[in-house]
């Protein structure tokens, strides 16, 4: 048994099954990401973050806990991580992107639930998630029905805190959300036995803004006529942000951005001259899920923009950096997160405006609306998004799919035809 396998066994994981999961994920990564030629050398770091998510990163979490820190699992970009970091709590996104664990969830849950929720649950149920046994608390939110009821089930086996994300955007909803941010802070204060200090909060705000600025810079390279990085690799970097140490990630990203700057200066691009510029809008692609980007880019398209929670919704809007006054900082944090344009809102005109703005900014030839199967919010909002895009003369294609590979033949036909049509 390897050192890591001993660690997993110590955490109560099924080591054999975990080995199968690791092989499955590595094969997916090889087939769907590593086929690309001429990747920047600095991408190596981010590939490693993905590969070490269950090994090296888990060791770091154990060390953090041994030093007295707490660890929480999150499932949504609505969770204000600044507050956790400021209290010495390490947050990590636990959303599942693998088809491997889905059957384990389906033993208990209905089939017609989104693959993201099933994959996440399946990892916990199949004893292949090394984070679950380490969590001091999980933080859920109310962005969809599947998630809400999942939290109820998981709350029976672990300490669970649910943040209520409002469904409308009136001042009353903003007031509710601010209360929820305060309740989250209080819950973490109880967990750690510490009081949130203004100084440490402003430091955490600066750190996460630094990460957001790095991601914004990274994504802005895609605006060039000949981008130095593929859409797939941009996704891999963004996925890495969800698991890596925030500061180390920010530093590594700045290094990659410098590399890309240099590539641009030397006229090095991902090539594919004449490739159709495509925007992906809708559901996120979390680590383990490279399906849509791979299908699009291996069919000759270039994904130049992601209006998703693993794209612009993750890094757009900074928290104003103001020292002092704790309450003002918390209000600024609440305001920033409430600008996240999730399909759980009604109405959600701001998202439609963002899609149109980004389509223009990134000069896209077409948009692919990505709907994880059974995600009713994005599936239904796709109707208004498609008609808004059509009015601007931008064709769109809706792809509704899960994490399995069984429909890739049909999807490839639809994607190739869409690209031929543009």
């Amino acid at each position, binding site marked *: 048994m390897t050192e890591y396998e001993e660690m997993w066994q110590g955490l109560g994981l099924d080591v054999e099954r975990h080995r199968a999961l690791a092989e499955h994920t590595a094969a997916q990564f090889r087939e769907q990401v590593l086929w690309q030629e001429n990747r920047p050398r600095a991408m190596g770091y981010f590939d490693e973050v993905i590969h070490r998510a269950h090994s090296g990163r888990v060791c770091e979490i154990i060390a953090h806990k041994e030093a007295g820190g707490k660890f929480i699992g999150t499932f949504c970009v609505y969770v204000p991580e600044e507050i956790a970091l400021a209290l010495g709590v390490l947050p990590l996104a636990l959303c599942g992107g693998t088809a491997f664990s889905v059957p384990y969830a389906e033993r208990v849950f209905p089939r017609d639930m989104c693959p993201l929720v099933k994959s996440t649950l399946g990892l916990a149920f199949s004893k292949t998630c090394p984070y679950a046994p380490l969590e001091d608390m999980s933080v859920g939110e109310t962005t969809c029905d599947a998630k809400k009821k999942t939290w109820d089930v998981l709350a029976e086996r672990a300490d669970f805190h649910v943040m209520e994300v409002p469904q409308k955007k009136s001042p009353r909803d903003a007031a509710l959300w601010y209360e929820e941010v305060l309740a989250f802070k209080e819950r973490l204060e109880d967990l750690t036995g510490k009081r949130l200090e203004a100084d440490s909060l402003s430091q955490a705000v600066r750190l996460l803004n630094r990460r957001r600025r790095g991601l914004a810079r990274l994504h802005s390279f895609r605006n060039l006529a000949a981008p130095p990085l593929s859409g797939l690799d941009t996704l891999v970097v963004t996925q890495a942000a969800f698991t890596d140490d925030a500061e180390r990630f920010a530093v590594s990203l700045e290094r990659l951005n410098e590399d890309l700057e240099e590539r641009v200066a030397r006229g090095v691009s991902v090539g594919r001259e004449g490739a159709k510029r495509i925007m992906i809008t809708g559901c996120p692609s979390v680590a383990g899920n490279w399906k849509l980007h791979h299908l699009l880019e291996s069919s000759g398209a270039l994904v130049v923009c992601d209006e998703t929670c693993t794209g612009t919704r993750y890094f757009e809007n900074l928290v104003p950096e103001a020292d002092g006054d704790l309450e003002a900082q918390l209000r600024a944090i609440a305001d920033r997160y409430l600008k996240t344009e999730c399909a759980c809102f009604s109405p959600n005109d701001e998202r439609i405006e963002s899609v149109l703005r980004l389509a223009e900014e990134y000069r896209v030839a077409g948009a692919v609306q990505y709907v994880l199967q059974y995600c009713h919010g994005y599936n239904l909002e796709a109707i208004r998004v498609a008609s808004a895009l059509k009015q601007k003369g931008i064709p769109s294609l809706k792809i*509704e*799919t899960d994490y399995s590979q*069984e*429909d890739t*033949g*049909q*999807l490839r*036909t*639809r994607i*190739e*035809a869409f690209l*031929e*049509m543009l």
Partner: protein
Amino acid sequence: MNGLVLGIDLGSRTTKMVTLDGERVESFRIFDTDHDPMRKVRQAMEGLKFEAVTATGYGRHLLKVEFADGVVSEIKACARGAAFVRPACTTVVDIGGQDCKAIRVAPDGDFDDFEMNDRCAAGTGRFMEVMARALGWEIEQFWREALAADAAAPISSMCTVFAESEVVSLVTSGGDRRRIALGLHHAIVARLESLISRVEPEGEMLLVGGGAKNGCIVGLLGERLGIRVFVPENPQIVPAIGAALIAAESARGKEGDS
């Protein structure tokens, strides 16, 4: 150079090959796609002389490795083929072995909109095969018997798995087989109608693919959509004709280059 070009449509259930001589279909072949599709294509290609070949269908990328100069999606191939065999058509619907496509044909013979069912087999050739078998008929008898029915049994499910159970329960409760068959055809056509209406059909519609040989569907579809539905003589080879036309273009392109 004999001026012949070849289009191959390696579909999920059958493979279609068409050789085109200018504006004329010189020959065509249709055979079942099996577990080793390349072996059969190799056999069929023996002795064939042609200037260029374009592949389409599910196996298009497989063909590209060994034979084809180019590949094209079934959608584009189908639109081109439709504009060739029936220039007046503005919509083409392809009922294939495991999918259905509705395509709006642009005035230049290309396409400007399309809809395709995703992983669900409802309304496809496969669905018809399963239902015909559940009723104890061959595929052709299935629609002929439906046409002879005096009324349609209500069928609520369009899922291949559930509809089969529904058919079995209707049969075992003494339901009339012809009525059940007609009910199934109504269900298929309702499904097709919702797919087709998304591309806003108008004018004349061309129906192609193996499913177009089903006379009951052709009649019901025309009635429901209220537009003229035309079925060409060999509806299965239309996408292969389109692929051959695209092969001809690439052959002309090559001549232009040299």
